[in-house]
């Protein structure tokens, strides 16, 4: 796979830093009581989201679970409207109805985050069925956590997509835990990608078992997902697994008794952003000042988003009762 151009790589870096700063700021706002409910951060997983979404064409589709901020930003949603949703404002991407877990943007073919784990997977198959039926050259990228592969929805969706040769890339973001439960304690197959074998035949038909990729390396993710998308476009579904790690708790306030500080620390060092920054520095002489500028701009973009959100109106009773039915 040809290495993308410098501008593209810098843009991925920008997205990853934007996501990191966005998430850090959300954590602060949560602690200040300005973001309510439950908040699931994407910190640590930026390379997976950015690398995977970058492999899509504009008219392709992406759908994910509730840990969705990173995917939304990578798909180009306006940080202002995303932050406004975090704060439950009228100007939020879902008008304050959905909140952090249910971001969505029809225009960008971002079908949203979904709060019921695994519930979005059959929808992904349906979206792909519609594309296939209408003979559109469009692929669906369906992201899920490792935990989601244990619910029946996952298995039914994989099987259906294999039988009907649907253009879906099933991407497992294996961050090693579903809440406090590690993969080994929840899955018969430790290598989750092996689950594809259950829906594939000896002659190679059915679900393709794709690679397990280094999810901390945005280039590796992009390569693998690009190939997977090509496969899905031509031949049908493929399952791939990105090995990543969430550096924060499952959600805010998680006491994290299921893992050690040392374990978390070991991933901080191999964190996706620092790693990619080093790649860029090694590759392009004197790029540091550009990267520093990107860092600053990301910080500013997040501050602007917070200001926008805080100055936005709260939803009203009219909002509460609107959109129950299509008129």
């Amino acid at each position, binding site marked *: 796979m040809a290495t993308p151009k410098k501008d593209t790589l810098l843009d991925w870096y920008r997205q990853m830093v934007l996501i990191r700063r966005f998430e850090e700021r959300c954590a602060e706002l949560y602690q200040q009581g300005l973001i309510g409910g439950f908040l699931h951060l994407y910190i640590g997983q930026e390379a997976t989201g950015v690398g995977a979404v970058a492999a899509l064409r504009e008219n392709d589709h992406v759908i994910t679970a509730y840990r969705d901020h990173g995917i939304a930003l990578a798909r180009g949603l306006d940080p202002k409207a995303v932050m406004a949703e975090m704060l439950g404002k009228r100007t939020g991407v879902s008008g304050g109805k*959905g909140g952090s877990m249910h971001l969505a943007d029809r225009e960008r073919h971002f079908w949203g985050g979904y709060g019921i784990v695994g519930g979005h997977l059959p929808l992904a198959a349906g979206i792909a069925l519609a594309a296939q039926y209408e003979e559109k050259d469009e692929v669906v990228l369906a992201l899920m956590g490792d935990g989601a592969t244990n619910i*029946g929805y996952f298995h039914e969706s994989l099987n259906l997509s294999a039988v009907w040769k649907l253009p879906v890339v099933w991407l497992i973001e294996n961050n090693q835990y579903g809440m*406090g*439960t590690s993969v080994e*304690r929840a899955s018969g197959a430790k290598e989750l990608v092996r689950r594809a074998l259950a829906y594939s035949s000896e002659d190679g038909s059915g679900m393709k078992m794709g690679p397990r990729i280094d999810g901390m390396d945005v280039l590796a993710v992009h390569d693998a997902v690009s190939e997977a998308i090509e496969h899905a476009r031509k031949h049908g579904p493929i399952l791939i697994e990105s090995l990543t790690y969430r550096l924060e708790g499952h959600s805010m306030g998680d006491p994290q008794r299921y893992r050690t500080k040392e374990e978390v620390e070991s991933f901080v060092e191999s964190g996706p952003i620092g790693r990619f920054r080093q790649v860029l520095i090694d590759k392009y002489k004197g790029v540091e000042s550009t990267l520093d500028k990107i860092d600053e701009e990301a910080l500013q973009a997040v501050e602007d988003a917070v200001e926008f959100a805080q100055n936005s109106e709260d*939803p009203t*009773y009219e909002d*509460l009762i609107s959109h129950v039915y299509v008129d």
Partner: protein
Amino acid sequence: MPEITLIEGLRQAMDEEMARDDRVFITGEDVGPRGGVFRATVGLFDKYGADRVIDSPLAELSIVAIGIGAAMAGMHPICEIQFADYIFPAFNQIVNEAALIHYRTGGDWHCPMVIRAPYGGGIGGGLYHSQSVEAFFAHAPGLKVVIPSTAYDAKGLLKAAIRDPNPVMFFEPKKGYRLIRGEVPDGEDVLVPIGPANVTRQGTDVTVYAYGMMHHYALQAAQTVAAQDGIECEVVDIRTLVPLDKETVIASFKKTGKALIVYEDNRFLGYGAEIAAILSDEAFEYMDGPIRRLAGLDVPGVPFAHTMQDLFMPSPEKIASAIRDLAAY
């Protein structure tokens, strides 16, 4: 007497019943070392071990269905669904297997299990962490449906549910987990039978029927209107939704002639509709005003934004105002 939280009452109930009967076991997501997301099972893994406090994969259908099979085979499972909003993958297993098995086998099998799930809004949880699902299950004969609203009842009803030979849906008002506290005697077998409702306040002007968090609010509202308006409410904590204690429900209505039924589920076809129907059918001649319901709005979910959540939810203030309206009727 020690004062404990509602959730501590639940924890003690499970602890004591596991000690009493080794056929009792717990399964659910992160119920083991983590002690559950709300920490209802904290300490039980250390005490009873991985064989009896079993972390499950993320698979609600199986959590329940494995419970049903084990219950039919003689065990007494407690299946925890992390939030009531996640129970629907298991809906088929509950209404088509658990509810039916005793009936369709002419009594050859039965299903002594408890399905626990935190329900309800007011915590900013948004669309999929705020739902009230009791009406779906109250509609299916064969299931018992219980919702405690005090620490004492939480403990006593859960112990009774674990001992009950039938499948019991046990919904817990999660907003009240730590907010609601009460005295519960130590070292004594606290059992609250499944069935009887509880008249928690005596009054003559209006009866307020409620359960769970709404019962807690109803008592607050009753105090407010007593102090400010001189209105004396009788408050009935339904606590067992199925089988309903019609006698207590009707007796109170005969006394006051006015009924306000409060529930946070969507109003249309919610549990309160059944109480209204029973009262109008069986105590018609005592009716001294419209039978009123105060409930969640008929919108598809409790939205995330606090402003919309608060507009959606019944509150002590809204209950007080509904009581005033009804008293003035």
